C-alpha cells in the first residue's frame, strides 16, 4: 500500500471530493502504477481522508492506495497529476490506513477576518451556530485552538466524524466580529502516527 500526502491548491480546491477520487485514480493509471480493484463495480482501492469542503485549499491531504512502487513516487505522481494536486511525501504501509478515523484534528489558516479576542471566545462554554444544512450545532467542543499569525487566524478544528468545517467557522466569526471569510488553507492533518509515517 502507498500512503501519501498531497496538496489541493491552485484551482484544484474547486474539484469535488468524488471528482478528485477519479483524478487520483487516473493519475495512477497515467503513471503506470496499477491499483488493486474491488467490488462489483470494479472500483480502485483508493482511500482518502474525510472530504474537504469545496474551495478550501490544502497542503495536507492524505490518500492510501492499494498499489506498490519502488521508484521516485513523488516525481512520477506529480508528472501525472492535474494542476494543484502535488504529492509532497509518501511511504509504504502494510495495510489500509483508515484516514477519516486516524485524522482527528486539522490546522487551518483563515484569511480576511477582523481581529477579535480569541481567548475570550475560547472561554465561552458553548458556541452555537446554524450550519450549511440549517442545523443548529454547538461548535466550541470542536475547536482545539485559535491564535493569530500576522493577521491571519490559525485554527485547530475537529476532523473526521465530528468535523467542523473551517468555512462554517469563518463565516460565523465574520458575521460576529466583522471582516470576511477569505482564503482558507488546511496546513496540517494532526495525528502523531501519521506524522511519523510521512516524516
Amino acid at each position, binding site marked *: 500500500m502507498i500512503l501519501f500526502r498531497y496538496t489541493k491548491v*491552485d484551482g484544484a480546491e474547486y474539484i469535488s471530493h468524488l471528482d478528485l477520487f477519479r483524478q487520483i485514480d487516473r*493519475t495512477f493509471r497515467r503513471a503506470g502504477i496499477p491499483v488493486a480493484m474491488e467490488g462489483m463495480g470494479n472500483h480502485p482501492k483508493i482511500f482518502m481522508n474525510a472530504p474537504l469542503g469545496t474551495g478550501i485549499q490544502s497542503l495536507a491531504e492524505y490518500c492510501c492506495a492499494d498499489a506498490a512502487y519502488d521508484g521516485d513516487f513523488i516525481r512520477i505522481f506529480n508528472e501525472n*497529476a492535474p494542476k494543484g494536486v502535488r504529492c509532497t511525501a509518501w511511504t509504504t504501509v502494510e495495510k489500509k490506513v483508515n484516514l477519516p478515523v486516524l485524522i482527528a484534528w486539522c490546522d487551518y489558516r483563515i484569511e480576511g477576518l477582523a481581529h477579535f479576542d480569541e481567548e475570550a471566545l475560547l472561554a465561552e462554554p458553548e458556541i452555537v451556530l446554524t450550519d450549511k444544512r440549517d442545523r443548529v450545532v454547538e461548535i466550541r467542543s470542536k475547536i482545539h485552538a485559535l491564535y493569530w499569525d500576522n493577521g491571519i487566524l490559525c485554527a485547530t478544528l475537529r476532523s473526521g466524524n465530528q468535523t467542523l468545517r473551517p468555512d462554517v467557522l469563518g463565516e460565523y466569526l465574520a458575521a460576529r466580529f466583522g471582516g470576511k471569510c477569505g482564503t482558507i488553507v488546511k496546513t496540517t492533518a494532526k495525528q502523531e502516527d501519521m506524522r511519523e509515517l510521512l516524516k
Partner: protein
Amino acid sequence: MQKIRFFSKKVDTLFTFRALYAIIGRKIEEVYAFLQEERTYSMKIDLNAMKDVLLSCEKPSRYTGGEFGSEEMPDSDLNFCMCLPDVYEVGMSNLGIKIVAKSLTDRGFCVDRCFAPWVDFGKALRENHIPLYSLQKKKPLAEFDMIGFSLQYELSYTNLLYMLDLAGIPLLRTERDEKYPVIVAGGPCTVNPEPMADFVDIFFIGDGEENDAEVAALYVKFKKGEIPDRHAFLEAAAKVPGVYVPALMEVEYNDDHTVRAFHGITHVKKAMIPDLDKAVYPDKLAVPNCEAVHDRVVIEVMRGCYRGCRFCQAGFIYRPVRPRGVDTLTKQACSLIRKTGYDEVSMNSLSTGDYPHLRELIRSLKAELPENVTLALPSLRVDSFDSEFAQDARRSSLTFAPEAGTQRLRDVINKDVTLEEILTAVGSAFDMGYYNVKLYFMLGLPTETDEDLLGIADIAKQISALYYSKKRKKQLRISISCATFIPKPFTPFQWERQASAEEIEHKQQVLREALRMRGVSLSWTDYFQAALEAMFARGDRRTGKVLLAAYKNGCIFDGWAECFSKEGWQNAFAETGVYPTEFTRAFAEEEILPWDFVDVLVTKEFYLRERRRAYQAKVTGSCMAGCKGCGIQREFTCHIPQNECPGAKKSGEETA
C-alpha cells in the same frame, strides 16, 4: 477583487470619471476612443479573488481550468480561444474542437478554451462585472485575436450570443471594429450558416483540419500589416476552401420572403480532407475536472456513412466515407489511453458497424491496450449487430434505431433494415443477458400514417414475445423514444414540411394508446423545440433577428428543458414578425433555398432523385452495394468495401 476595466457597453463608472478627468475639455468621441484604447490592457482573472463567485455556483471546477493534459501556452502571433456554446461537461467531450485546437497549436499558435457558463455562473459574472474568460490563461475573451465557436446543434445558437455578451463583445458583426476579436464558427450546423450570419465573421464549412489554420495564418499577416485592413483580410479568407464570409455576400428576397438571388461570393464549397490517416488528430486530451458527458478516449474510426438514410443530414454532409487505418487507430487509442488514464475507448463514427475492418480493429485494440480498458461501440445498426461486438460493450442495455414502425416507411426513409433483422439482433442481445432495449423512432416522417405508428407498437410486442419465449431471470424493459422529424438541409427531405403541433400531438396520442404494455415506456421530444430547431436549421438571415430578440428576452441553453423559455421565444416571434411556420412549411423544388450557395459536394439532382424514390417507397441502399452517383464521385474515389465489410448487403438495386 481587482476592478475590471472593460470597455464595450459596460464602462466602469469610476474609471470613466478618471478618463474624463485625464482628457477634460475633449469631445465625447475622443473620450470613447481613449476608453477603447484602454481596452487593450492585458488582464488576468485571479481565481483567489473570485472565490465567493465560484463558491456561489454549482460545480465551480467547470470554471477553473488546470486539467491534466491542458497547458497554458505563451502568447503567439495569433491567440485563439476555442469555444463550444454549451456547458463544460458537453464541451470537454467534443472531439471536433480538440482537432481544431491541435491543428492550430501544430502551427505554433496559442489556443485556449472556453465553454458557456451555466446560468448561475453567468449571472454571477454579470453581477460582479467579470468578463467571460478562457480556462487556461484566465484571460478575458475580448483580448483574444480570434474566437472560434463550434456549432453542434441549432438550440445552442443563443448561447453563442450569451458568451459574446458575457465577454463584452458586441453581438452584431457590423458593430465590431478591428479592436475586437474575429468571430469564427465551424461544426455541422454551418452547412446552413445564414441564421448566424449577423453574428459571425467567418464560417468554416466542412472538415476543419486545415482551413482554420490557413485563415489563422492570414490573420497573422493582417496583424503584421501585410494585409491592409480587416475587409482585405476577410476577402483573403474567403478564398480559402470551405470558408464563408457573410459580409461578402448579400441576399435578395422576394416579397414572400423566399430568396430571389445571392450576390457577391455566391458559391462556397465545403472543405474536405481526403485521407484521414494523414490528418491531424490530438495526441493528448485535457482530462476534465468533473465528470464529462463522454468521459473516455474517443477515436474516430471513419468519417461519413455508407447508408444514405434520407432524413439524416450527417449522412450527406460528411460524405465521402473515409475510414482510418487499423494501425493509425490502434496507435491513437494506445497513446491517448496512456496519456489520459481513461479506462474506456469509444470507436466513434456515424455507423461503426460498417467500419470495413471492425473485427481486425477490435483484435488489434484488445492486443495492444491494457487489459482493464473496455471498448465501446456506439452507433451500431441492427443489421451490423454482432455478439462479438456487443460483448465488448459490457452494458445492460442496448439501443437500436429502427426510426419507423413499418417496412413501407423504413423503405421511404431508406433505412434499410427489416423487422426480421431487428428481432435477430435483439434476440442475440437477450441471449447474452441484455434485458433493457432502447428503440429510437421519428414522428412526422413524410407519408407517415397511423398504421406506421401502430407498427411501432407491433415491434415492441414482437420484441416482448421474443424475450418471454424463453425463461429469463429479469423483467424486460423497452424504452421507446420518439423524436419529431426535422426536415434538414442537404437531405432528400429538405423540401418537406414539418408536421404541425396538432399532427404530432395526434401521433403521440395514437402511440400512447397503442403502447399500454407492461415493461414499455414511451418518451418524446417537445414539439416547440423541434419547430425551433427546424426554423434555425432551414432559416435565412431573417432568423438572426429572432435569435437576437430571443436572447434579449432571456433565452439561453434552449436545449436544456430547465432553462427553456417558450414565452421568450414567442415574444421574439411577435417582436420580429418572423415565425417558425415560415420555415417548417414545404419548400418548392424550384425555389432558391437559403443554403443553396453552400456546396457539400452532393448534387441537388441526387437529392431530388432520392426524394422521388422516397415517395415510391424504393430503397436505394448503401454505397457498399455500389455507387449511387450522389456527386461525390466527381471529386473523390470513394472507398467501397463491398465484401470486406460485415455490414455490407446487396440491397441497393440501382446504381447511377
